[in-house]
């Protein structure tokens, strides 16, 4: 059997014709090309849309997560945190974030960023949404694109004033920042119209400075005469109107607050950032309206030797009762050197020149010149009690009469020193104690005893027989005086005198005729003197009469009942007068005086002076007759004339003395009257003002 191989078909050449590459290209290639181009386009788009990278540095990055924490502007997400890392030296945390390209140009140097966290404060709860969603970064910037920035420093706290917010920012100064906190309200008539920013220390560290933002349109209420005051907490004051408790809003109670008001018109418009002072309360703010707080003040020192307890920084300085400044510093300084060194307490006074009534333009130097002038005229500083209950002191500048000369000196160094005088510090306890002590010390018992004694004495005087007899004696005296005046002898005196003169005239005539003029010269002169004396005597007589008449009138006007009654009514204590032996003896003396006078008058009447005159005249008459009879005995005549004249003069002199006696009687009566009046006045004074017994005045 033959094994033939199976028939096989001829090999077929199936190699295809090589076609050019581009002809063989399949349409499927469009798919990867499309995929590639879509991918590239997407990548490019992505790259193009990628936000601007910015870096914000924070102190810590609590809650910030890369890829999750977003950046918001007015609650719209504008970016996302890409990375969080440390700066060189671990000083800060750098947060890298991408910000939308559309927003990035607005991020200029006024852009601020802060982390929004949940915050619970008196004014409300903010950022509550971040409890669940995590914190986010809030940014704020204005709407003007400026030079774009890429690196920022984040704030620790949310800013209060949003960029673009309309209003005015002012700077407030205060000495104590304890009552103000950031975000505290600014009130105007009780409405919140703004808020405070973060308080800061001033450059010199003496004051606390805080910015306050007043929203539009309330900021138009602020002028240069606006005053700000602290309304934080509450104030309790007590005075004549009782206790008053002043509480502002609860928020300001806890957080503090500032209120302002513009009371006087005419203030100038303010600019942004104007500086104002914060006054401790509304009253002082309103009080300050009349002074310019920015005016320069005069600082002078006062050195006190005694304790200044009760004097504090801020105590008032008064001039004539008006506050002109306050105490600025209190410290002790050493005055003198070596053994004479002394520690004095120096109070530096801050005086406002405008309060001294000087013009607003006046400088502290002008005020010092004025004060120096005052000091030279007796102005002195002293401490006086300002409030008797709290024991606070104020410094008072007073004008002291006849003060020791002093001037304003520069002794203590930088401040001019105003000399001091004794202080008037009344301590409540000491004052009350002193009053009680004085009341205690009053001799009330003795006083009562003295009054009783005095009444007894007056009663005794009034009841005395002698007193009762005084009116009768006076009446008798007057009667006798009247009788004397009316007596024939007295009436006859002028007639007799005329007769004597006629006689003398005749003598003279005859003497002239007898041609013995020279011999008679001395005699005539003596006779002329005698005549003059007699004339004087006659002149004195009417005077005596008028005096006696006045005495009578006085005695009538005396109204002894009134005297006794006044003396009885007035129970004053002139026991020295009434109780003394002299006073007791007064009625007796008076009677004695009256008796003497009566005796004198009787004497006059019964042949004393009148007879003497008559006798003298008779003698003269005889003498004249003798001259008439014989001119040869002229020397004897002259001798006798002389004698006559001497006698006449003695008589006349005796009358003169009597008239002095009557004047003395009158003076005595007047003294008694004065004494009675004085007692009466004293009694009235006590009745009107019993306090004077206590006050000792």
């Amino acid at each position, binding site marked *: 059997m033959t094994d033939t191989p199976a028939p096989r*078909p001829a*090999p*077929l050449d*199936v*190699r*295809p014709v090589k076609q050019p590459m581009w002809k*063989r*290209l*399949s349409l*499927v*290639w*469009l*798919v*990867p090309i*499309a*995929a*590639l181009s879509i*991918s590239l386009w*997407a990548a490019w788009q992505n790259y193009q849309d990628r936000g601007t990278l910015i870096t914000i540095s924070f102190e810590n990055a609590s809650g910030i997560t890369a890829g*999750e924490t977003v950046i918001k502007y007015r609650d719209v997400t504008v970016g996302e945190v890409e990375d969080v890392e440390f700066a060189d030296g671990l000083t800060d945390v750098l947060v890298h974030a991408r910000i939308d390209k559309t927003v990035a140009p607005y991020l200029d140097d006024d852009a601020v960023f802060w982390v929004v966290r949940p915050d619970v404060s008196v004014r409300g709860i903010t950022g509550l949404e971040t409890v*669940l*969603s*995590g914190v986010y970064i809030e940014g704020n910037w204005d709407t003007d694109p400026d030079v774009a920035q890429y690196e920022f420093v984040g704030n620790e706290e949310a800013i209060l004033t949003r960029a673009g917010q309309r209003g005015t920012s002012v700077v407030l100064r205060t000495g104590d920042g304890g009552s103000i906190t950031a975000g505290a309200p600014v009130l105007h008539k009780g409405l919140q119209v703004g808020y405070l920013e973060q308080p800061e220390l001033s450059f010199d560290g003496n004051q606390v400075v805080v910015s306050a933002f007043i929203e539009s349109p309330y900021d138009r209420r602020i002028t240069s005469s606006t005053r700000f005051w602290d309304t934080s907490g509450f104030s309790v004051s007590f005075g004549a109107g009782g206790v008053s408790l002043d509480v502002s809003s609860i928020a300001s109670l806890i957080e503090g607050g500032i209120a302002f008001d513009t009371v006087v018109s005419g203030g100038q418009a303010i600019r942004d950032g104007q500086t104002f002072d914060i006054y401790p309360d509304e009253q002082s703010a309103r009080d300050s309206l009349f002074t310019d707080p920015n005016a320069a003040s005069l600082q002078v020192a006062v050195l006190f030797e005694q304790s200044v307890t009760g004097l504090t920084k801020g105590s008032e300085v008064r001039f004539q009762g008006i506050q002109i400044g306050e105490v600025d510093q209190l410290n002790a300084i050493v005055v003198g050197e070596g053994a004479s060194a002394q520690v004095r307490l120096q109070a530096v006074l801050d005086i406002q020149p405008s309060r001294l009534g000087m013009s607003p333009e006046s400088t502290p130097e002008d005020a010092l010149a004025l004060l120096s002038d005052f000091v030279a005229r007796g102005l002195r500083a002293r401490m006086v009690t300002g409030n008797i209950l709290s024991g606070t002191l104020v410094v008072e500048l007073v004008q002291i009469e006849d003060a020791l000369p002093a001037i304003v000196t520069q002794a203590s160094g930088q401040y001019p020193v105003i000399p001091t005088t004794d202080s008037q510090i009344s301590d409540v306890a000491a004052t009350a104690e002193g009053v009680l002590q004085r009341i205690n010390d009053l001799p009330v018992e003795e006083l009562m005893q003295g009054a009783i004694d005095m009444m007894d004495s007056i009663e005794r005087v009034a009841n005395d027989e002698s007193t009762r007899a005084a009116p009768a004696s006076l009446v008798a005296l007057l009667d006798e005086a009247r009788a004397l005046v009316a007596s024939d002898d007295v009436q006859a005196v002028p007639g007799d005198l005329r007769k004597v003169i006629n006689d003398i005239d005749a003598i003279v005539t005859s003497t002239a005729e007898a041609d013995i003029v020279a011999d008679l010269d001395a005699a005539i002169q003596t006779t002329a003197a005698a005549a003059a004396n007699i004339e004087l005597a006659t002149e004195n007589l009417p005077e005596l009469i008028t005096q006696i008449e006045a005495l009578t009138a006085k005695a009538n006007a005396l109204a002894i009942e009134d005297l006794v009654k006044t003396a009885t009514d007035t129970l004053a204590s002139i026991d020295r007068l009434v109780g003394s032996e002299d006073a007791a003896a007064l009625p007796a003396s008076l009677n004695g005086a009256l008796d003497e006078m009566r005796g004198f008058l009787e004497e006059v009447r019964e042949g004393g002076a009148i007879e003497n005159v008559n006798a003298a005249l008779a003698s003269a008459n005889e003498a004249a007759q003798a001259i008439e009879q014989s001119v040869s005995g002229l020397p004897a005549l002259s001798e006798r004339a002389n004698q006559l004249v001497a006698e006449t003069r003695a008589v006349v002199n005796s009358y003169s003395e009597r008239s002095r006696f009557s004047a003395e009687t009158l003076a005595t009566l007047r003294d008694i009257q004065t004494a009675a009046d004085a007692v009466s006045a004293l009694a009235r004074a006590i009745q009107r003002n019993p306090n004077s017994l206590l006050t000792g005045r």
Partner: protein
Amino acid sequence: MGSAGTEGGLITARDAGLVACQRCGQVHAQDALYCKRCDGRLQSRDTESLQRVWAWLFAGMIAYIPANIYPMLLTSTLVERSESTIIGGVVELVEYGSIGIAIIVFVASVVIPIGKFLAIGYLAISVQRGSQDNQHQRHKAYEVVEFIGRWSMIDVFVVAILSALVQLNTIATINPGIAAVSFALSVIFTMLSAQSFDSRMIWDVNRTAE
């Protein structure tokens, strides 16, 4: 029929002047254009096969890049919002201790797609170079690639199911990220690439070498 591996003893349909329908297996004469049974287009060899393989492969690779860069899942809960990529999700699963699930996700999302790229690329290159080595192994590799390709969609399915189920408004929401779409496209492209490969070309080398 003898062993397919015997040297020179293997006759292809083409050698015999025949052409087989690739859909129903009906053998026709060489010049037939359409299958008598299923009316499918008859083609002894797909001359543009390699072009399509490469095109779909490139498209799949391009799509695979964003699938890995962008997040696969967008998870928003009340307290946080998280985005996780494929690799990020695997790392997270490992950190949570779910090693098994991590391996499954890693294999399905990373190993298989990359393996497919490599396998298809290798097959295409080897055909182009007319390599005669490991023809049987390469054919098996092709079969495995074509079979396993659809399982790569497991990731996409997970994302789709989660997105559909977890929609609780603000409390918790899961949305597919852009990577899910990219990944799905990548899988589809690689499957098309694998299907475009005409495995008969593996065996044509002998003829062309003669």
